[in-house]
């Protein structure tokens, strides 16, 4: 006799598919943000499932800081080609060249914050009225408070104190011309859920998520890759270590962790045992202040 029970992964999957379909049904021009990072890879897979056997009814967009891991860009292009959808690139370099933003200077310069301008410009240019993001509520405390359908005003701003109540599985996507909605289908997933789903579904990820040898140096307790995008300062020593990435972002502010996990199963074991959050371990951008994420989100960040 069947017990009519869903595993937690299948329940999360059903919820995400429902959210993605709801957006396709109610919006004129949605777009899905896709960086090649594990969360966006899972989100893209869920979108493919939501519309199978139809192709995706929307394009995907990469906000490209220009500071990329080569493996991830190669993966991005391959994965988008497989999905048969169109890739829109919102380029931070272009925003700098056009004088929309000014690049930070100094050895700690990062293009992380500049992504917001590139993103908002692209949303306006293409007339997107909904943008899917792969953010999860377990990642960060400001995100823990954000709705699945998150309203953005004419300036792309998020107002955390004035959010729409969100009840049952009824999502309010109404907005005026020029405003848009950020949609987070993975809101209720945790880092471990993502990895368990990657294993269960046999999802392909960029190689940098698995242990490999890399030249790294330590800064603020993080391991940064020695690359053309960062300046190694005095007293920082570059060594070759076995590392993997827990998150994939701008190469100038995303840290690696020491690891020997070379398969999904090994990564799951590592994630289940870790005592540090993925953003705490690997993201310099969140360390600026207690409310760094909230402040960036208010401006229109992912």
């Amino acid at each position: 006799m069947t017990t009519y029970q869903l595993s937690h992964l299948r329940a999360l999957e059903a919820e995400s598919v429902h959210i993605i379909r709801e957006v396709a049904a109610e919006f004129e021009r949605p777009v899905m943000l896709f960086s090649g990072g594990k969360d966006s890879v899972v989100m893209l897979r869920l979108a493919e499932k939501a519309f199978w056997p139809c192709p995706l009814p929307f394009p995907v967009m990469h906000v490209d800081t220009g500071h990329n891991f080569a493996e991830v860009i190669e993966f991005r292009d391959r994965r988008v080609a497989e999905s048969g959808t169109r890739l829109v690139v919102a380029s931070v370099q272009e925003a700098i060249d056009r004088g929309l933003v000014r690049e930070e200077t100094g050895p700690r310069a990062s293009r992380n914050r500049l992504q917001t301008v590139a993103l908002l410009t692209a949303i306006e240019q293409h007339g997107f009225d909904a943008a899917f993001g792969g953010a999860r509520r377990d990642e960060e405390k400001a995100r823990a408070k954000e709705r699945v359908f998150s309203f953005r005003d004419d300036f792309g701003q998020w107002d955390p104190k004035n959010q729409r109540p969100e009840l049952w599985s009824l999502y309010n996507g109404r907005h005026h011309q020029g405003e848009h909605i950020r949609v987070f289908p993975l809101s209720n997933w945790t880092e471990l859920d993502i990895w368990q789903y990657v294993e269960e579904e046999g999802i392909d990820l960029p190689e940098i998520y698995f242990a490999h040898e890399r030249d790294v140096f330590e800064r603020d307790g993080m391991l940064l890759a020695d690359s053309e995008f960062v300046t190694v300062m005095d007293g920082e020593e570059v060594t070759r270590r076995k590392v993997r990435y827990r998150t994939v972002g701008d190469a100038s502010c995303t840290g690696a962790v020491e690891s020997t996990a070379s398969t999904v199963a090994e990564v799951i074991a590592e994630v289940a045992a870790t005592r540090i959050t993925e953003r705490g371990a690997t993201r310099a951008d969140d360390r600026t202040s207690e409310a760094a994420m909230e402040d960036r989100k208010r401006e229109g960040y992912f």
Partner: protein
Amino acid sequence: MAELLRFATAGSVDDGKSTLIGRLLYDSKAIFEDQLASVERTSQQMGAEYTNLALLTDGLRAEREQGITIDVAYRYFATPKRKFIIADTPGHIQYTRNMVTGASTADLALVLVDARNGIVEQSRRHAFLASLLRIPHLVVCVNKMDLVDWSEERFEEIKAEFREFATKLDVADLSFIPLSALLGDNVVERSTNMGWYEGSSLLHHLEEVHIASDRNLIDARFPVQYVLRPFSNEWHDYRGYAGTLAGGVVKPGDEVIVLPSGFTSTVRSIDTANGPVEEAFTPMSVAITLDDDIDVSRGDMICRPHNQPHVGQDIDAMVCWMSEQTTLAPRARLALKHTTRSARCLVKDMQYRLDVNTLHREHGIDALRLNEIGRVSLRTTVPLFYDEYRRNRTTGSFVLIDEAANTTVGAGMILGPTQ
């Protein structure tokens, strides 16, 4: 197979709610070292004498500055048996709408009672909201037992008082756990200070409580969300109706009727990207194909010919008003969202307001204001396909939207057709 359990908590720092959640998360290893370090740092900066675990959930700048919980925060933890989603909401009456929001998707509610104070107005209100939102399981956590000398008598007294109050509510499953969130007694491990208590610890209860029967597996309800038409050579004639089962079970070969058209057909297949399935049950997201080529679109409802929902435009519902700017008054016109159907509605009548502390019904009212709950009669522009909320939380619920501001201003739980 790990199941998902969503539970809601309501309360303020004084109840020990944050301490309790903090302990559940910490003892189940869902709090990480960097999070704890950050909370410790902030606690010190704020001059607190102890680490304020509320800072783990109070993530917004305004919440930290004011030392209060404003909004619903979602927290996650897992044990080998279950994955848990906590909707952590503020307990004060001015945040009733946040409690209603957090309760809307919960399988279980925790109500905290301070053993020294016993049942107070706030505990009654939380229990009432849990029953109004039809949360099937209610767990009364009698906290701070250490401060009443672990007294069995005190625990039994509170239990009796709560049971008496609960007879006025509609609670399917009510349990009581004596605990000390601060010291950890009966939170994760059974307490050694209360030998007289023979029940399980809170975490054990959360892992074991039977939730499989909470869903409505009797009434098949499939609100059509999206029509899948590939227009490719491989899938030339494919027409799949995508959606999430809002109730019941559907199998290939089932005779079905489509509302509002009334056309009948037979389920040909139930498809997912991982292949066809032999049956689909709530809350699976699938695509259904039918044997006949009939007109079906978003907002339609697929169900069984001999088990249909109500079809109608005149509906009575309990509504919780959520807007600071406006009130809900007779003749108001609003947008309404119900399952995958959008409509407009007109407020025909306001029957009474419910005092959420005393359950007293106040008749002859002119409007519902922020955080107020009342019974109203609505007329919709198009028929809705609905069930009573007590029978199905998905087909029995709707939200009201301000047509000018586009904000969500009300939450409705359907009682039935207007008499």
